């Protein structure tokens, strides 16, 4: 066996050098390679579909055997979550509307004014190093490299190359190459996992007490002429115990008073509303970076400062925007799961639990957003 023959070595060296040459050409950007990629994607699309159709029964059988218990448990968890979310939805919608109105009043950019393109996830990375999924929308739908991708829960990632006419790749927020400017909103306590007794708002009584309390006390005083003035009757239009604001920073308007019934024209109704205003929410800015694999992303602060001591677990994280940022401000990202202080002048590291479940993506929305710096050009 002539393993060290010159000819054999030449072939191997030639192949390795060719690979290195291709790598260099591709990294520098090459139109021919881009066209070759487009062509390869077109060729593979029908073959992928055919192979998927053939292998789907095998895949389902395997998953039926292996994943049944996990699926059942996940189903229970999701049902709990649905129950919880139904309660919070109405209050959240009102809050979002008010937020959009405030942004519009202040001429601030908001997500409501940016076009989006709904896309379906049709594949994911087939290696163990990239955190990437493939979607079925591409250049023909206005999708461009760098655009943020979200789903109903929050930030998913951003568009990365290659983008073909009808498909694109999304670099997930967990990828090591992913980074985005975020701001951290402090002041919201954690919601415990598992089934807990909640009000219709989705928050526990304790949380409601801790957050914002808008207590409405309404009394109906009987007319002094024919009734005893000392008798005070609770207003039947209000629920027992009054009403309580359900969303931090969002006060529910006081209930309207029912018109007096006939014959009760002399009834005098007084309504007293006491609103406890929340402390101003501290905000800090940092850079969210993916860490690959199963590890959740992290927010880094380059320098420590006293304001960072306010940051704690379960603080909210959302995109910060800015003229250079690829993502507009206000996209919800997740909650702080853990805080690690670093020795020296470096700021703390915050592990962020993403809202979006990146393992179970189906439909996503590409935000057709260009950074302000590019729009101006």
């Amino acid at each position: 066996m002539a393993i060290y023959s010159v000819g054999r070595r030449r072939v191997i060296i030639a192949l390795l050098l060719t690979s290195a040459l291709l790598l260099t050409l591709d990294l520098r950007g090459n139109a021919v390679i881009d066209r070759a990629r487009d062509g390869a994607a077109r060729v593979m699309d029908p073959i992928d579909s055919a192979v998927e159709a053939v292998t789907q029964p095998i895949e389902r059988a395997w998953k039926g055997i292996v994943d049944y218990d996990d699926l059942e448990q996940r189903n229970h968890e999701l049902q709990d979550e649905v129950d919880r979310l139904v309660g919070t939805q109405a209050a959240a919608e009102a809050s979002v509307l008010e937020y959009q109105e405030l942004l519009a009043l202040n001429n601030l950019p908001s997500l409501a004014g940016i076009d989006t393109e709904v896309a379906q996830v049709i594949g994911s990375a087939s290696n163990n190093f990239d955190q990437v999924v493939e979607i079925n929308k591409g250049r023909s739908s206005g999708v461009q490299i760098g655009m943020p991708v979200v789903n109903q829960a929050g930030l998913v990632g951003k568009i990365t190359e290659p983008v073909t006419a009808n498909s694109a790749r999304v670099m997930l927020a967990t990828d090591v190459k992913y980074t985005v400017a975020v701001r951290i909103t402090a002041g919201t306590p954690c919601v415990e996992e598992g089934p807990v007794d909640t009000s219709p708002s989705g928050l526990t009584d304790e949380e409601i007490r801790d957050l914002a309390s808008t207590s409405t006390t309404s009394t109906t005083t009987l007319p002094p002429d024919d009734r005893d003035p000392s008798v005070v009757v609770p207003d039947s239009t209000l629920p027992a115990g009054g009403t309580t604001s359900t969303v931090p920073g969002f006060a529910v308007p006081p209930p309207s008073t029912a018109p007096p019934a006939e014959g009760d024209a002399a009834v005098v109704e007084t309504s007293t509303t006491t609103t406890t205003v929340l402390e101003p929410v501290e905000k800090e800015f940092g850079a969210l970076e993916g860490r690959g694999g199963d590890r959740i992303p992290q927010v880094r602060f380059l320098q420590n400062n006293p304001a960072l001591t306010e940051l704690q677990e379960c603080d909210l994280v959302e995109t910060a925007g800015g003229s250079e940022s690829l993502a507009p401000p206000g996209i919800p990202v997740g909650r702080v799961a853990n805080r690690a202080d670093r020795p020296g002048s470096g700021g703390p590291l915050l592990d962020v639990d993403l809202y979006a479940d990146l393992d179970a993506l189906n439909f996503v929305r590409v935000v057709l957003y260009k950074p302000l710096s590019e729009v101006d050009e």
Partner: protein
Amino acid sequence: MFASFVQGPLIRLIPVGIVLLALQRTIFVDLTVDGVIIQVMTAFAAAAGAVGGSERGAVVGFVLGVMYDLVEGTPLGSMAIAMTVAGIVAGLLALITADPQWWLMAIFTGLGAAVGELAVPVVRVFIGEDHPVEPRLAVVVPTVAVTAAVMSPLLVPVARWCLRMTPAEWKDPTTDATT
């Protein structure tokens, strides 16, 4: 040139590579082992190396790697290097025995695939990616190696067919001497 293409391994390798690539992108993305995606293409390159030697393994690895890079969007040449290395390593390991048993082929294929998978983050370090080496690599590499070894009884015959090689037949020297 046309004749050499028809008679060479490429005419069989390309269709096989397309099917393997489609399998890699569909079923093997979902059927993971402890969250690790089985690398059937790297395993095939290693199997080709174990069957045909380091040179043929390198050719198969290079062709499959370029196909993978073109379709998957990874930097063109990065997986080609990794799969070429897988083929070379498996081919070099196969030299320790003249006529390896199936289980030895499985071991060569597994080790070749392991080195190939390990080469991926190494290549990415060279092209300037941040943090390509993750602690999870300690799980990924052994899993890819074991699954490649398990798949080798299927992949080795396909690799032989692609490379137009027939398994060595053992002949009794005494019979040869008498006849």
